[in-house]
């Protein structure tokens, strides 16, 4: 028996009125001139839904407290399949939403669609723009990396400097000055608890008002028969949404969103920069210093927002024909030039990132691919001065056999046996026994097995900090919990790419007291000599990502 879908639909409609309401919604009459330019609003709503969807997915694996936030986000990015894509969609979706909302505003402004009786629609829209920026500002802190932390320090300081309201705003943002747990929690609550329902309510109001007053006609529309919203306009909106989505998806896949080092309030070298859409404000502040600063940070932006809200009351002319709205066009052009100029200045004056560490990457980097055990083998190789007798490719003495060829003929067991009792393995040899522990001999053999004519020079050129750092690594058995270049245990976090996640000072302090810097960590404290600490940290920071 075929299911009677129509019957079910009819039953549902009689009980809920959903279909009737939807039909009514879709059958709305719109002016004949309506077309592509009216699609921005729909795209903005679509992007909001994408943000809500990806936001929920991120929140499912996210721990909203400082530190934990960072670790859980890293877990999303590295351990969870699809995590990077979802974060990419959320990150670029935020930027895109700002672009689309701004384009929507400009379109409405140019066409004078804010004029009587649509003043309230416009004002609700401006508030929605502010809410969108509010998402950007609060969401910026949530990864809790250096970028997030320092950016938010600047934002809270600006809020605190506002005339009259400053101290109250500062308290509201959880500041006794420092950005910490309280500020973080408030930003999080703002981002996921306060703003979303507010956005939904405002969108509902905004759309209700659009419906109430109808889509703004252009002069000439009154002569033409009206069209229905569905399916013609819905089709155009859908195409526009598809284009936006295709761009967003491509960016999420192709452009990697950075996650910098864990926020480090003691880092004195970090230069905070805001997200691109706030760069113009950032640059304004650079131009206005001293007593003018508060003008640039609070007064001007405040006046601009007020002016934007009051646009319908400032411009009360009747002109709706877009080509005759020269003043409006001039305003948009000026704003665009100002915004672009300030943003371009900010981009152009971006300081070069401080050199991460004094590591010379210009030399051969084959050694970076070695495991710590193999790298420590180089240290023993040098310590025992093997090249005094052995040839190593082109270099070394010619007394003993070429060591770049041993890996072809010999295995580790043979080598170790040979290191211990050369005479037993090769009667009559002049090689002296090597007095190292079994672990150290293993290390030496591991290195020799990696040695071949092609990499001989570059491996021998491995910097001392790396071989010495690897010695410290081996001596303290770091590999029993950590992985380097895929070798070791995955019990603790892998150490490749450490320099991207943590600052040097953090790592050095972490050795001394792991529980203090990462509560719940299983890692025991390590006391190193200053030299060992320096070598080990430099070595770990030099590891490829």
């Amino acid at each position, binding site marked *: 028996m075929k299911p009677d879908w129509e019957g079910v639909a009819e039953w549902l409609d009689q009980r809920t009125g959903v279909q009737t309401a939807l039909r009514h919604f879709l059958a709305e009459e719109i002016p*004949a*001139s309506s*077309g592509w330019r009216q699609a921005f609003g729909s795209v903005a709503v679509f992007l909001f839904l*994408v943000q809500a*969807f990806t936001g929920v*997915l991120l929140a*499912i*694996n996210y*721990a909203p407290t400082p530190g*934990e936030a960072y*670790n*859980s986000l*890293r*877990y999303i990015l*590295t*351990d*969870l*399949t*699809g*995590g990077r*894509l*979802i974060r990419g*969609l959320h990150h670029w979706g935020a930027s895109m939403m700002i672009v689309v909302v701004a384009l929507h505003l400009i379109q409405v402004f140019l066409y004078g669609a804010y004029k009587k009786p649509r003043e309230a629609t416009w004002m609700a829209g401006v508030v929605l723009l502010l809410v969108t920026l509010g998402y950007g500002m609060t969401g910026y802190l949530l990864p809790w990396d250096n970028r997030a932390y320092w950016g938010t320090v600047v934002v809270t300081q600006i809020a605190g400097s506002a005339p009259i309201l400053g101290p109250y705003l500062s308290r509201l943002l959880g500041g006794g000055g420092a950005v910490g747990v309280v500020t973080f929690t408030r930003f999080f609550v703002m981002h996921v608890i306060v703003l979303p329902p507010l956005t939904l309510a405002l969108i509902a109001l905004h759309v209700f008002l659009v419906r109430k007053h109808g889509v703004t006609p*252009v002069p*000439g529309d009154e*002569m*033409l*028969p009206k*069209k*229905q919203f569905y*399916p*013609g306009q*819905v*089709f155009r909106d*859908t*195409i526009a*949404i*598809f284009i936006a*989505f295709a761009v967003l*998806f491509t960016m999420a896949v192709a452009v990697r969103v950075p996650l910098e080092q864990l926020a480090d309030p003691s880092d004195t070298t970090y230069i905070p920069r805001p997200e691109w859409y706030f760069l113009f404000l950032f640059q304004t502040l650079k131009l206005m210093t001293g007593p003018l600063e508060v003008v640039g940070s609070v007064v001007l932006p405040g006046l601009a927002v007020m002016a934007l809200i009051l646009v319908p009351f400032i411009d009360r002319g009747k002109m709706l024909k877009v080509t005759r709205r020269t003043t409006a066009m001039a305003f948009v052009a000026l704003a665009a030039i100002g915004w672009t100029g300030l943003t371009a200045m900010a981009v152009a004056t971006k300081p070069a990132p401080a050199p991460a560490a004094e590591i010379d990457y210009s030399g051969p980097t084959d050694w970076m691919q070695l495991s710590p055990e193999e790298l420590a083998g180089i240290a023993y190789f040098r310590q025992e001065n093997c090249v005094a007798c052995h040839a190593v490719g082109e270099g070394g003495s010619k007394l003993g056999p070429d060591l770049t060829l041993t890996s072809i003929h010999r295995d580790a067991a043979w080598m170790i046996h040979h290191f211990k009792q050369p005479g037993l393995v090769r009667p009559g040899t002049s090689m002296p026994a090597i007095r190292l522990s079994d672990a150290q001999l293993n290390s030496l053999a591991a290195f020799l097995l990696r040695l071949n004519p092609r990499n001989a020079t570059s491996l021998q050129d491995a910097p001392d900090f790396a071989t010495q750092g690897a010695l410290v690594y081996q001596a303290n058995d770091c590999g029993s919990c950590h992985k380097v270049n895929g070798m070791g245990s*995955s*019990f*603790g976090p*892998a150490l490749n790419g450490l320099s991207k996640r943590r600052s040097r000072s953090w790592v050095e302090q972490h050795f001394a007291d792991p529980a203090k810097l990462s509560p*719940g*960590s*299983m890692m025991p404290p390590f006391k190193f000599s200053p030299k060992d600490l320096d070598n080990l940290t430099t070595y770990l920071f030099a590891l490829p990502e």
Partner: protein
Amino acid sequence: MSQSPELEGPTRRRFYIGAIYAIGGIIGAALSAPALVYLFSSPKSRQNSQWVEAGDVASLAPNQPVEMVFRRNRVDGWKVVSEKGTAWVVKNPDRSVTAFGPQCTHLGCAYHWEESKDEFVCPCHNSVFSLDGKVLSGPAPRSLDRFETRIEGGKLLLGGLRPSSGSPA
């Protein structure tokens, strides 16, 4: 700017509607497929596979279960936590050792050894298990789960907990 009113013939109308559904479907699929993978695939890397020392084997008397308490590290999402674990350890007459997981196989309550009856009893729903972990009565669906065990230098080492596949009998 005048534009001729759209003539929405049935063909064009059908095309519009078809395109709306098709694009909606594509976007829906492009968003839901990664979301499903993200939600349902298990996290990469970081597997627990550590042996932990539970206690001395020598102190055990044959057929007398002892609850051993030990600390073990467990990967919990983005963290590694150190937590207390327990196991009911039985030395068998042939000197081998069995270590049962501490939870009843019915709904996960902690059971205990009833000395007077020589049975493991779960207080929640009265599941009863024999000394070798088999279900004697009650709602438990299968025998008690067992840890992988190893004895080194008189110490009992516990590995992963293997769910029993045994039927109630």
